[in-house]
């Protein structure tokens, strides 16, 4: 091993900096999953009948399904009966009316993670719907948004306060029978965020959710639904991190986006869940279904994601381009270090005429990381003049990691134009030495080179997120070249 490689190996052994478990008494339902569990969750949340029925349909369908096996990820079988499907911090039974009522322990947790709600509220102009385990505990700027007719808050609140909207759109993009994990989510999801932007309204601030998995052995099943009505605009940020723990934790979230005529939704994610230790012990299983539908003409949905965490990521933010002239975008950076595995990409389904889509995927593999891009571009017969451009670049750090690319292209309309470019490169000793010779440490050089590689994607992120993402890359990568 060269001296450089030795130093890098040392750096790679660093522990996850966000590893701690906060001590909040949790109110949990018993382990395991049955119709009874589903009823219990729905009852705890005082849901209307339509919700319980929908959950039960989902649960019964889920029983007929089996876990998908086609991804490149390898992991021990998940025991779905050994998971706690609902947990809420105990102090939440009496809902806090403001941040002042929030359990100080919770607030301290956020602060340790660098998300002081109050500061963000004042400084960044971000409304944060903070999800601690499964129940929303703090929603800011709600009043200001309400003046514009924007509804933004927890999914539970939306179910109670705007049942018609929920009933109209829930499952309309990701039906409960869509896939194994989506069905599971539909049956047991505990909370999440809901957002509705009325016609012609441009949401004046970035909306943000902060997820965190905490209670021991608790699966996290979030559900997010965002609707941008005709001519509306919203930018939504999702960021997450999790405490150190040993047991693998299942996370099966669903995100549905609906964009009506000429509406635009920008959805950005920075995902930094606990990836497991360097031997692959622990870490989050992140099996997520994210899909947006450009339902209206000229609508536009863009997904931007920076995925650095989780032991396993299985995630394909997609766009259904139904409206004529609608646009779908996917910009992704996925990083796997140590024993992390990622199978991620996008699906662009072109239905409307002159629909356009862009996929830019940057995969970075370090350590023993496995990184697969899997993407589908499907042009239906109706999609006259559709266009797609896909670009998948992989960067390898070291010689124990791997990158895979699985592009699927189905074109049913001869006027369509589909382009796909792919590249794989390795951070060269030459590049590192060059930077070092200019006085820059290996660590800084790696992060500089990787950030350069990711630049195209980072520039799609809102400013404060872009800065966070760069820091995250540096932390996650610390010394991964051999």
């Amino acid at each position, binding site marked *: 091993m060269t001296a450089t490689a030795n130093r890098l190996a040392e750096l790679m052994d660093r522990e996850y900096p966000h590893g701690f478990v906060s001590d909040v008494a949790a109110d949990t339902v018993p382990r395991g999953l049955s119709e009874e569990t589903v009823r219990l969750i729905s009852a705890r949340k005082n849901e209307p009948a339509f919700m319980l029925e929908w959950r039960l349909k989902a649960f019964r369908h889920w029983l007929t399904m089996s876990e998908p096996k086609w991804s490149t990820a390898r992991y021990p079988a998940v025991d779905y009966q050994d998971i706690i499907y609902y947990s809420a911090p105990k102090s939440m039974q009496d809902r806090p009316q403001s941040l002042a009522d929030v359990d100080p322990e919770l607030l301290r947790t956020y602060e340790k993670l660098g998300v002081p709600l109050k500061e963000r509220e004042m400084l960044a102009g971000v409304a944060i719907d903070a999800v601690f385990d499964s129940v929303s505990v703090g929603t800011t700027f709600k009043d200001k948004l309400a003046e514009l007719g924007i509804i933004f808050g927890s999914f539970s609140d939306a179910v109670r306060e705007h049942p018609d909207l929920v009933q109209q759109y829930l499952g309309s993009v990701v039906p409960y029978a869509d896939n194994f994990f989506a069905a599971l989510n539909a049956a047991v999801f505990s909370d999440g965020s809901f957002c509705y932007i009325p016609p012609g309204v441009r949401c004046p601030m970035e909306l943000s959710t902060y997820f965190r998995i905490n209670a021991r052995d608790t699966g996290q099943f979030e559900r997010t639904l965002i609707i941008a009505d005709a001519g509306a605009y919203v930018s939504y940020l999702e960021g997450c991190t999790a405490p150190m723990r040993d047991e693998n934790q299942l996370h099966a979230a669903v995100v549905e986006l609906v964009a009506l005529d000429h509406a635009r939704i920008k959805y950005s994610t920075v995902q930094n869940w606990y990836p497991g230790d360097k031997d692959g012990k622990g870490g989050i299983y992140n099996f997520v279904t994210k899909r947006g539908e450009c339902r209206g003409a000229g609508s536009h949905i863009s997904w931007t994601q920076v995925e650095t965490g989780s032991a396993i990521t299985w995630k394909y933010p997609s766009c259904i381009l139904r409206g004529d002239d609608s646009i779908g975008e996917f910009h992704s950076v996925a990083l796997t270090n140590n024993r992390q595995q990622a199978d991620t990409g996008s699906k662009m389904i072109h239905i409307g005429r002159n629909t356009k889509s862009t996929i830019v995927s940057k995969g970075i593999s370090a350590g023993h990381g496995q990184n697969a891009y899997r993407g589908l571009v499907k042009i239906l017969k109706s999609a006259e003049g559709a266009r797609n451009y896909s670009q998948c670049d992989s960067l390898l750090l070291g010689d124990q990691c791997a990158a895979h690319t699985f592009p699927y292209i189905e074109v049913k309309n001869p006027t369509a134009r589909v382009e796909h470019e792919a590249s794989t490169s390795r951070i060269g000793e030459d590049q590192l030495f*060059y930077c070092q*010779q*200019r006085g*820059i440490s290996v660590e*800084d050089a790696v992060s500089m080179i990787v950030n*350069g590689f990711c630049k195209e994607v980072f520039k799609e992120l809102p400013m404060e997120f872009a800065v966070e993402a760069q820091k995250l890359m540096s932390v996650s990568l610390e010394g991964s070249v051999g």
Partner: protein
Amino acid sequence: MLEIRNLQASVDGKPILRGIDLSVKAGEVHAIMGPNGSGKSTLAQVLAGRDTFAVTGGTVFYQGVDILPMAPEERAREGIFLAFQYPVEIPGVSNVYLLKAALNNIRQHRGQAELDAMEFLALIKQKMKQMEMNEDLLYRAVNEGFSGGEKKRNEILQMAVLEPKLAILDETDSGLDIDALQIVAKGINALRSPQRAMILVTHYQRLLDYVVPDFVHVLAQGKIVRSGGKELALELEERGYGWLEGAEAAARPAENA
């Protein structure tokens, strides 16, 4: 400033440098010449700390300190600069970003305050003017899509900004047309100073018409086989390296040129 004694280095067990002795004082410009494969570039890289070469013997003292145990970035911060024969491309990282990071690392090491963006831009624009470089090169990715001449000028620009004490220029003249060569030479000459030493590694004498060295050393098969003044370069130009190859057997360590 630099004392090299019996330096030996190998790659994959194959000896490349077989006992180099060289002493360089502040203010001096030394040219290292020699045929392909003689170890010129290896010497440059070993001095800069490239760890693909294993140092198997000898010592290198720089300003009285043994630098062989030091990492490349530590040597750089101490004022050793290598202008690369093949400057690497770093996609997505702008030239200006790399240079600013480099300069601030070095300034920090020297106990100087970091330059802010405005101060830095003022400095670099002035230096670019000297090198007759287009300002748009600042915002392009490091060396990406640069012509051969632009890459080499960029190296000299970095040298001008970083103000090293010991500059090692590895075949900076290769691949340059005559106009570019003159600009690069002008840049190098502008940096000659009584406080700074330079080692020019070159295959041809051409660069030495413009940057006149104080000493010339000829390297063959990993050893310095002949040392002399600038006239040695002219002799080589006339007679080629062949007449010295035989001298290798009789080579004795150059008594400091």
